[in-house]
């Protein structure tokens, strides 16, 4: 990758950011909205600078909840998908339950979750976990079931055990879809953590969600800064997952090749 090519990626992106900031500033100055509805980019920036330590601290707390929730989802979602892939009757019985996770109105359930789990990072992690679990289960299950017919027959001919089939055939084949599932889940895990913090946070350890919840009443520029940072946190989590995911895929590809 040469410099010219890099610039080809970076310049359009930078241009878009600049245009966007200009548009934002223009809208602010032409609309006459007060700061509590629409603060200008400069105001939000200085709110960020003024409160950077608090924002960083909150971001760290939200990041912990989100990454904890996502890790649980990866572990539990992957194992669930393996169980699902083993028999049709398991899927028929339990798949609808997994769909519930996707459709449950988490905002309504969060206050109930607090009744079971104590407020704090465990509760916010749990909500992040629930929100990010389904994409992993559904993608991985699909990947595990989508086995090449010829290879399946080959495994059958050689009387491979169920475990050998799973470990040597299904799991390697499902890796790309598993990674896709985790990528989708990564953004959602941050969303889940922020929503969780609305209801289940301790105020001594305020994540971004709780900050946003309070700041709407008295410091909207600071709130905007928190919302933007929460958005970036989602992108960051996605990026980290993508980097790791791509590496894992590369590793599995090589392994597949060496096995042939």
């Amino acid at each position, binding site marked *: 990758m040469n410099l010219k090519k890099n610039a080809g990626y970076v310049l359009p992106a930078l241009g878009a950011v600049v245009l966007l900031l200009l*548009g934002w500033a223009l809208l602010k100055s032409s609309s006459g909205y007060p700061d509590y*509805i629409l603060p200008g980019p400069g105001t939000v920036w200085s709110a960020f600078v003024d409160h950077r330590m608090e924002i960083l601290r909150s971001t760290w707390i939200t990041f912990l909840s989100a990454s904890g929730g996502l890790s649980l989802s990866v572990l539990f979602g992957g194992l669930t998908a393996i169980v699902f892939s083993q028999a049709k009757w398991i899927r028929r019985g339990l798949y609808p339950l997994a769909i519930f996770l996707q459709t449950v109105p988490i905002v309504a359930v969060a206050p109930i979750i607090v009744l079971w789990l104590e407020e*704090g990072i465990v509760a916010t992690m749990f909500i992040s976990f629930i929100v990010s679990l389904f994409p992993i289960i559904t993608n991985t299950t699909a990947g595990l079931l989508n086995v090449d017919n010829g290879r399946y027959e080959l495994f059958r001919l050689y009387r491979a055990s169920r475990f050998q089939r799973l470990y040597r055939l299904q799991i390697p084949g499902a890796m790309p879809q598993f990674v896709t599932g985790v990528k989708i889940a990564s953004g959602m895990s941050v969303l889940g953590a922020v929503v969780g913090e609305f209801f289940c946070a301790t*105020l001594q350890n305020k994540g971004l969600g709780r900050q946003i919840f309070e700041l709407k009443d008295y410091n909207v520029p600071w709130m905007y800064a928190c*919302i933007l940072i929460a958005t970036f946190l989602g992108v960051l989590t996605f990026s980290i997952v993508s980097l790791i995911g791509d590496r894992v895929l590369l590793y599995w590809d090589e392994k597949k090749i060496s096995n042939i």
Partner: protein
Amino acid sequence: MKTTLTALLGWSVAVFGFGSVLMLCCGCQSETLPQTDKISLQLNWFPDAQHGGFYMAQLKGYYSQEGLEVEILAGGPGANVEAKVDRGKVEFGIANAHRILLKRNEGAKISAVFAAFQKSPRCIMVHRESGIRTFEDLEGVTLAVGSDAAFRKFMEQNVDLHDVKLVSYSGSNATFLQDKNYAQQAYSISEPILVKRQGADPVVLMLSDIGFNPYTSCVFASEDYLKNNPETVRKFVRASQKGWEAYLENPEFANQKMAELNKEHDLIALNQGAAAAAPLCRPKEGEPIGSMNPDRWKVLVGQLKNLKMLKPDFQLNEAFTVDFLPVH
């Protein structure tokens, strides 16, 4: 790998852009209201004893006697009353004094014209079994507080909370009812009455006892509206005041209506709430209901500045006016 990274950068920009555009689109319309005597009052919460006088004024016809057709709009957690009034979506709103100051600090041009509660019903509710009787006793409990950061910060500043676990208040009394070591924010005229009827024995610690005492259930309007419609405002304040006088005398009439509108309360709870509200609403001898004292507002400004919730150069200016109260 690098391709992924650079693609990601582009992708982040796209997400950031989309998010910002979405935010920019919020609240893009603003309307101007026709100058009729048909007006709306936006409440800050679901109808209960903190709004009794306004319902009374409507039900007894005090508003219509003044030639006003008033629609009372129920509020809730996301009511955003201050913005609605400031942007001219409704003529009048109900808010507590500190919220009016906090929104003015951020550019809203709103002024309070009437304060239904002289003493704030804001309190912390604990179980009698906890042994806690004063703020100094607060320890070893979990305390749930909502989004209203002002009184929470005031407590953090003035009460030793090192052995108190502060958590989010979801708006439900369920946790309080099942946990004797749980304390929560409340209005003395509402939640303590409700939990008592469900078998709990609550003790209330009034925030006003430690000095945080903003006027509560204030009627406010935008500065522009006050300037352009002084007669309507005068009529509205006069009728509201009559409504509160009637409500404090005999609340049953309005409470029946509010019990229909807000299923969380029933008539008995609302009647008890109104009885608890009466001493908080009655001003000092010789002062009319709804009156406000500049010194009280100044104290509040000082407290909020102390909590770094107002800009250091914030001025009271037109945050409130008693010009529309009937002269006694």
